[in-house]
């Protein structure tokens, strides 16, 4: 855990101002290292989704820089949105195949990767199903499989479990950590749930609104893999209290 991990992405002094002089993000600094699990935690309007869109390259900063270390191309970023965002006309395996299809790889040449990704999220039996045949949690798993099938350098998750019931959410939290243990992915995870951020991440970036900005960064120095029992441990409660306080301070500051 303590070894210095390689830097992946460096965000420095990024501002984003939308039309009408809406300051969505002010002075964002963030260094992402390999195998980081970073949560962006804050109230709505704090610019956490804006930050994610900037990092994804879907929008460009008004000022400041976003620098990738090393080569950076298509398929180096995986995304999971709040909705599963699957193509309803395509089967589960075709949905997971999409990132490869868009770089011109034939299905046969990547079939093993697609099936492996489906196996990692426990859906290998459903490869020929259509999205409408799946439950909300299963659709989200397909979405996660698609995000990681190219083994991207960075996975961005924008409140992926917010629309799911709590039981499903807990299960997916556990599975996500297991996945991280298996493939060692780097994740930036947007959430407004204190408990989710503590359970999942090793760094919590607390943000405030109007203008969107970072107010505090907390570390959760608990080793991975984290068992289910971590949720009910004293250490968890302690981290959750600190994160709640930081969030409260951020909201007062706004």
């Amino acid at each position, binding site marked *: 855990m303590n070894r210095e991990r390689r830097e992946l992405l460096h965000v420095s002094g990024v501002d984003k101002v939308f039309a009408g002089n809406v300051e969505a993000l002010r002075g964002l600094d963030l260094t992402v290292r390999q195998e980081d699990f970073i949560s962006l935690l804050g109230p709505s309007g704090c610019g956490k989704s804006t930050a994610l869109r900037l990092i994804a390259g879907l929008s460009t900063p008004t000022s400041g820089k976003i620098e990738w270390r090393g080569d950076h*191309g*298509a398929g180096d970023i995986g995304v999971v949105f709040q909705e599963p965002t699957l*193509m309803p*006309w395509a089967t589960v395996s075709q949905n997971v195949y999409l990132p490869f299809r*868009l770089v011109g790889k034939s299905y046969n040449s990547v079939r093993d990767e697609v099936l492996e990704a489906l196996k990692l999220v426990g859906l290998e039996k459903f490869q020929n199903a259509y999205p*409408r045949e799946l439950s909300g949690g299963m659709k989200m798993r397909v979405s996660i499989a698609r995000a990681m099938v190219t083994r991207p350098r960075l996975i961005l998750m924008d409140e992926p479990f917010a629309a799911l019931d709590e039981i499903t959410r807990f299960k997916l939290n556990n599975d996500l950590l297991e996945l991280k243990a298996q493939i060692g992915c780097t994740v930036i995870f947007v959430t407004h749930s204190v408990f989710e951020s503590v359970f999942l991440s090793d760094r919590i970036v607390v943000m405030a609104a109007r203008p969107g900005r970072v107010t505090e960064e907390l570390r959760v120095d608990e080793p991975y893999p984290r068992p289910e029992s971590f949720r009910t441990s004293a250490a968890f409660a302690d981290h959750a209290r600190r994160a709640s306080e930081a969030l409260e301070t951020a909201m007062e500051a706004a």
Partner: protein
Amino acid sequence: MTDAPMTDAATRAPVVDAEEARRAKSRKIEATARYTLPVLCMVLAIFAWDRIVAINEIPHYILPAPGLVWAYLVENWGNLTDAALLTGRITLMALLVAVIGGAGLAILFNQSRMVELSFYPYAVILQVTPVVAIAPLIFIYVESKTVGMLLCAWIVAFFPVLSSTTLGLNSVDRNLRDLFAIYRASRWQRLIHLQLPSALPYFLGGLRIAGGLSLIGAVVAELVAGTGGVGLGLAGRIQEAGYRLNIAGMFASLSLIAAMGVFIFAALSLLSHLLLRKWHESALKREG
């Protein structure tokens, strides 16, 4: 004792409470009524028609009895099917051209905003001007009767395909669009793998309307142009029978045109169902 659970399950009658039984019964009644009621209505209407003609002694050159219409249909079946084939061919060709033209324009408009801004108003103008008013002009400038008829039918039929496909191409899920951008999909890839599949249900909705309209276009063109030179279509048959006060002939041709319209609608509905049944909400079986 090992078979105990089995006997238990076998002896227990399936539980159907009163509400469920009522619901099952009303479903069954509706399923039967869906076919029997329309047929019953038709039988009654024909019977009433026949009685009215007989009781009032209406002469056949004003209103023929249904039996007379039927006899005409049977007697002239060969001629009538030839006419139906001609009208049907024009209709299908017009539908094909409407689909290619309508969907093609929609894709073109979608790919270039400037083209859309330039031409969309004219597509609307073409649509809102009644085809009956345009048709005589068309036949002045177009030499071939067939081409003229196709043009008429196309003018009526292409617009629903254009407007619904345009709507579909623009109704892509916003997140999916972002996802394609993140994977750096080309404009072409976005069109093929994202926009066209998203637009398919909308396109098929427009197609069903266009099917009926292209029949209307074909009939109107036939009535305006006359069909000398290419043989007689169903509309031409109606006209001709009218000149001779052969009212039974008019009814016979009319019923064939109606049957053709129903057939086109049913065929396009089936096509739509087959293409969408696996994934689209509209094609899913309705539950209870």
